[in-house]
């Protein structure tokens, strides 16, 4: 039985060299790659998300931890088949039409990817129709929309209405976030979830997929 506490700590510290070294050592000790991912990398990232939500950590720590996990996953990925990679669920994310801000959205994508979600990032300035097409094509569990300026927030509601018009609203959970977005607004437009910060996205998505 391998002790993953050191690996988890290296992720929390955002120390990608130490993390890569510990991942390689675990592989040499014939650890199950799935265990390395869930008990080491993802466990560390979940802690980072919790520390961010509690106010102990800031975005730089989250960025470094997410980068650390992404780089270590690149070491593990060649060792396992796609079907053996544990996937928490599929998430499509994007910044809504008219809005080019992407830091929060990128961060959520990195954190969810590190936490085991299969993330498809549609980028910025995404029209409702494109969200709908992506949901039809990729059948995600969750659709996440971001907006930073008040002018673009109505595009979130328009996207939800477009999902309804396409009769696929019930196929996907919709979450929203961004500086001007509030729980009040999320409730008003009929979203399934709201994140006040990137760190809480992992917890919210886990809850929505029943993890």
């Amino acid at each position, binding site marked *: 039985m391998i002790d993953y506490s050191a690996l988890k700590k290296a992720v929390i510290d955002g120390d990608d060299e130490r993390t890569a070294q510990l991942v390689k050592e675990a592989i040499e000790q014939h650890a199950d790659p799935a265990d390395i991912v869930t008990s080491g990398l993802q466990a560390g990232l979940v802690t980072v998300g919790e520390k961010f939500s509690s106010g102990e950590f*800031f975005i*730089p720590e989250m960025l470094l931890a997410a980068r650390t996990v992404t780089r270590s996953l690149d070491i593990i990925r060649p060792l396992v088949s796609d079907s053996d990679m544990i996937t928490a669920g599929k998430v499509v994310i994007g910044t809504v039409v*008219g809005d080019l801000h992407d830091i929060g959205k*990128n961060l959520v994508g990195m954190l969810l990817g590190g936490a085991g979600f299969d993330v498809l990032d549609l980028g910025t300035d995404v029209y409702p129709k494109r969200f709908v097409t992506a949901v039809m094509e990729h059948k995600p569990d969750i659709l996440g929309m971001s907006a930073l*300026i*008040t002018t673009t927030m109505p595009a979130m509601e328009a996207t939800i209405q477009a999902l309804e018009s396409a009769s696929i609203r019930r196929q996907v959970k919709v979450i929203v976030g961004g*500086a*001007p977005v*509030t729980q009040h*607004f999320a409730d008003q437009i009929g979203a399934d979830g709201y994140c006040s910060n990137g760190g809480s996205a992992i917890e919210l998505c886990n809850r929505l997929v029943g993890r």
Partner: protein
Amino acid sequence: MSHKARILAAAHRQAVDKLPFGARIDVWYNYHCAHGTLPEKYEGWNMVDILRDQGAGVQVRHMRIWKLEYDNLEVVTREDPPYTITEWRTPVGAVSLKTVFRPEEGSWIVYEVDHPFKSKEDYPIIEYIFQNTRVVPDLSEYQQKEKMVGEDGIVITGMDMYSPMQQIMRYWLGYERFFYELHDHPVQVGQLYELQKEVAKKKLEILGESSVEIPMLCANWSDEFHTPVFAKYFSPWLREASDYLHSKGKVTQVHSDGEMRRLIPLFLETGVDVAEAWTPMPMTSVTTGELRKAWGDKVTVWGGIPAVLFEPQYTDQEFDTYVIDLFKQIAPGYNFIIGMGDNLPFDGRIERVGRIVELIDKYGSMPMKL
């Protein structure tokens, strides 16, 4: 007292006759002008006259009172609609910036889509650009706006929006890459900071000699981004800049419309006089009462009404209740300028600007007793 006199007095922490109000509506105005959807009454009006009609003090933005010119390098700009590409061609290499400007979405500034710094090979190029930058006074447009606003409010301008390290973060590297680079190449990032600081000092000298009353030193903070670098990079610079501008008889301000909870205790180290665009709950986690308790009378606060309150999702009754509760939190009301956090949204109700004026007339005589 005029709107301008009230705002300036509050910024200098001096007595006022009633609660000052400096309203900002450029997002709303730009959006509706671009879409031809201004209210019928205001068709063809300029923004200042609309605010005058509402009875509010005016807040107008102006980006800078200088031009940047360069020695020993070429700057080439080309249009690739909707983008503008700016390339700096230096003897040590070239970097390029891709921006987009969307006034039809209410914006008054360009947005950086692709930043000049792409890899660590770009450090010497950007260093070269900073070393060969000249700052040349250019006040004519600012003075026109100042004349247009007159005693009815303030034209806000300052450091191109960002302090030296935030210039590097936001403009040259981009936020995400900045934090990776600060972790991976701290010496090189530190060198860029020192060079950008020299450029910023030239801007400060121009501000110091200008008629700008409350120079804006920094903008768009959010505590989850900036707290880790605030004490090391932001605070010493803001202290230096504020001390210099104080010696010129001015007070200073920063644009603080983001989440401020963990920056609140650090703010007092900066020497900055005014926290403009203060945005409380529900758009951030902090109430105005908490902020006042933390800062006391050391900082003048400008703002207090979150943008979302102007939207139709809040009823007129909810709006009134929020504003009156704000008055209670800030009573007796000194060192406070009512304003938006940070703007009237495109779907905001312009008549609520006038409603604030009515509520100030009813409750805002100093000292406020609620």
